[in-house]
């Protein structure tokens, strides 16, 4: 009896083992319930229950979430038209798609969940089950050396021009080429040519290798084609394509700009100190060479999604800010990438398509129009004593903020100062004596505006009085008119600080020496005392 039972147990164990050994592979291929669970919980909100890229949030997005039913993927290591590899899809899940609403899921979802959801995504298109589809991961080699040298970049630039990159990406790479306003993705939604000065927003990654891969494979579903046929037919060597990738990469900062809280404004001119060699006089022209010697600070902007009508698709990703002062006046230079010098009739059809694509939460908002570009610099009316600051989103009725608003015009632009009491109300300040000045230039997809104002003005109640050595709250707002941005449809920042450097007083250099001497003296005293006590103790 016990023998039979033992044999029975043994048989069951064998059966169990064989189930364990054989079943998982077949289960893995078919059972996608685990993946579906993850998908419904985390992905369907944007990508839709059926994977058609039409979840409830999709209508507010640009670019729209991926429609999985066509199995068309931008970021691949395969030739244009081929399916992506599993690793390609997993990279998008793990790392997200920078510059879009797709976040990185590594760390948020377990490895098992991410693998499960990947398997489920593949069920949305019959192409993945089609065994005649060949998925061949391309071999990419590695970048030739000397990629950041002037000679390599010159070669890269030569091909940038000769193979027509500028048609969409523009002469300087800011996505402002002549074809840019006509671009659509495969679903017919408006799409921007990438701004090549913001590599940290490239969907497929910011490295030279990533750029090279996008050139080889193209971004399927978008207007960006594959340049592989050029290499196959020897119109271009592989090295030349690498040089192009290196040139494109060189247009962006070497590293993703770090967001810092405080803008340091060095002091220039007489009055001594500071300056970092920033010339003798306050630079008021946007293209004054002195600006090249002043640190610039990056501030990302996001859509205004607090008040109606909300705006989820801001066209301006952020602003670069520099500031200097000369003890009398302050100059703040704001530069930002904007594909269009609005108002521009060439972009009007694009603007219409954007407004048709992006859902509005307010039926009362106006349609497409020839809006200007705008930029606002915001300060509190007075430097706060503590951390209390007015409401960042343009203050409130009872606690307004002091703003400089610059508005573009075909003639260049103009600036007005005023008090904002919330998004809807802006009261211009009439005082001519405290009025800020602004000079602007637009160059191949970039606005540069220099605001200047005297540190002190007569209207101390409403106009901020700048004081060196204090942390002055500052915030930024930007509108791209050709994307339909005006009123509450804009890009906003939170509060940051502007600090005007003080001339360094002599005590800054002396105090540390004094402090060190004192510490040393004190230390010696303590040691001597302890030694004396020690001797006394051993004697006793």
């Amino acid at each position, binding site marked *: 009896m016990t023998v039979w039972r033992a044999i029975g147990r043994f048989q069951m164990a064998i059966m169990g083992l064989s189930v364990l050994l054989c079943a998982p592979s077949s289960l893995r291929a078919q059972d996608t319930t685990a993946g579906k669970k993850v998908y419904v919980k985390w992905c369907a909100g944007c990508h839709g229950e059926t994977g058609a890229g039409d979840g409830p949030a999709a209508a507010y997005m640009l670019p729209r979430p991926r429609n999985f039913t066509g199995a068309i993927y931008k970021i691949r290591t395969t030739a244009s038209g081929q399916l992506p590899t599993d690793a390609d899809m997993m990279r998008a899940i793990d790392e997200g798609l920078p510059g879009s609403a797709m976040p990185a899921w590594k760390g948020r979802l377990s490895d098992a969940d991410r693998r499960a959801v990947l398997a489920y995504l593949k069920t949305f298109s019959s192409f993945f089950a089609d065994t005649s589809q060949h998925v061949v991961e391309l071999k990419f080699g590695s970048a030739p050396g000397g990629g950041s040298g002037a000679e390599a970049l010159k070669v890269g630039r030569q091909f940038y021009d000769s193979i027509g990159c500028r048609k969409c990406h523009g002469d300087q790479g800011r996505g402002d080429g002549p074809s840019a306003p006509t671009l659509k993705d495969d679903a017919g939604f408006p799409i921007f040519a990438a701004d090549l000065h913001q590599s940290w927003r490239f969907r497929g990654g910011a490295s030279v290798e990533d750029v090279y891969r996008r050139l080889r494979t193209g971004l399927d579903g978008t207007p960006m084609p594959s340049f592989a*046929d050029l290499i196959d037919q020897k119109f271009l060597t592989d090295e030349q394509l690498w040089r192009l990738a290196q040139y494109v990469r060189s247009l962006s900062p070497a590293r993703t700009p770090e967001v810092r809280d405080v803008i340091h404004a060095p002091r220039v001119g007489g009055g001594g100190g500071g300056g970092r060699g920033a010339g003798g006089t306050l630079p008021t022209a946007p293209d004054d060479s002195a600006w090249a010697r002043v640190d610039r600070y990056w501030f990302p902007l996001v859509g205004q999604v607090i008040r109606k009508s909300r705006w989820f698709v801001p066209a301006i990703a952020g602003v670069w800010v520099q500031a200097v002062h000369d003890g009398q006046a302050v100059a703040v230079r704001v530069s930002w990438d904007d594909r269009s010098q609005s108002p521009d009739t060439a972009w009007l059809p694009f603007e219409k398509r954007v407004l048709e694509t992006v859902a509005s939460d307010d039926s009362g908002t106006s349609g497409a129009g020839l809006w200007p570009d705008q930029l606002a610099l915001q300060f509190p009316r007075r430097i706060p004593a503590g951390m209390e600051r007015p409401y960042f989103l343009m203050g409130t009725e009872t606690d307004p903020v002091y703003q400089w608003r610059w508005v573009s015009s075909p003639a260049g632009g103009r600036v007005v100062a005023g008090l904002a009491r919330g998004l809807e109300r802006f009261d211009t300040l009439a005082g001519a004596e405290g009025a800020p000045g602004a000079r602007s230039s637009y160059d191949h997809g970039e606005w540069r505006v220099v605001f200047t104002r005297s540190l002190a003005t007569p209207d101390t109640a409403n106009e901020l009085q700048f004081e060196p050595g204090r942390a002055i709250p500052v915030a930024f707002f930007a509108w791209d008119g050709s994307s339909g941005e005006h009123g509450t449809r804009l890009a906003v920042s939170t509060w940051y600080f502007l600090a005007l450097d003080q001339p360094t007083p002599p005590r800054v250099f002396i105090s540390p020496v004094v402090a060190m001497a004192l510490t040393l003296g004190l230390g010696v005293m303590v040691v001597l005392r302890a030694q004396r006590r020690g001797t006394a103790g051993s004697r006793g």
Partner: protein
Amino acid sequence: MRKLGSIAAVAVGVGVVGLAAWTRQPPQGGATIAGNIKFTGAKPANPKIDMTEEPKCKAKYQAPPTEEVVVVNPNGTLANVFVYVKSGLPATYKAPAPAGSVTLDQDGCRYHPHVLGIMVGQNLEIKNSDGILHNIKAKGTKNRPFNISQPTTMTSTRTFTAPEVMVPLECNVHGWMHAWLGVLAHPFYGVSGSNGGFSIKGLPPGTYTIEAWHEKYGTQTATVTVTGSETKAQDFTFAAK
């Protein structure tokens, strides 16, 4: 000896049958369906193309070029209508892809032809005669889409794997450039040309659903029965919208 002979006869017989099976062609017939694409109503104006950005293309035109959404011929017929056998062929029907290729030319920043047909597996030669940057994007849904760049005078070859009417082709550098490609598993299709006529030749006897497709006016169908080597007439009429 007799035994041997019969074995040989069987072997030869098997060989003949095998050879017959191997060389068997699709059931080609001798029937033809031909007709004209008529057009009624006011002829719509095609959008003008602004080629200022492409002087090389612009120089190829005397009068300002237009898009080719609706091309009405001088004789009042409609060009660029794709007419094909939609159904009616035996389910087992299989035709090999012809060795010859189909050419799509980019010349003067327009596609030539504007509407074309191709068989599954047949080579599509995409030619850039302009020597300026074009990209060719195929936006099929049954076929894998692709998007390739041709910044210079060159030819790229691609094939299609599944029947699809139609695969839209477009250039994104020049938003006005559109072409339409009908991909079929059989050779029974035609495109109405500058006299508005089409003909589908070599049809085996049978009853067929013929569809006529136009990029703006949509599709129309007709049922046609052919026998032997007869030619049956079948016209289609599209009306201005």
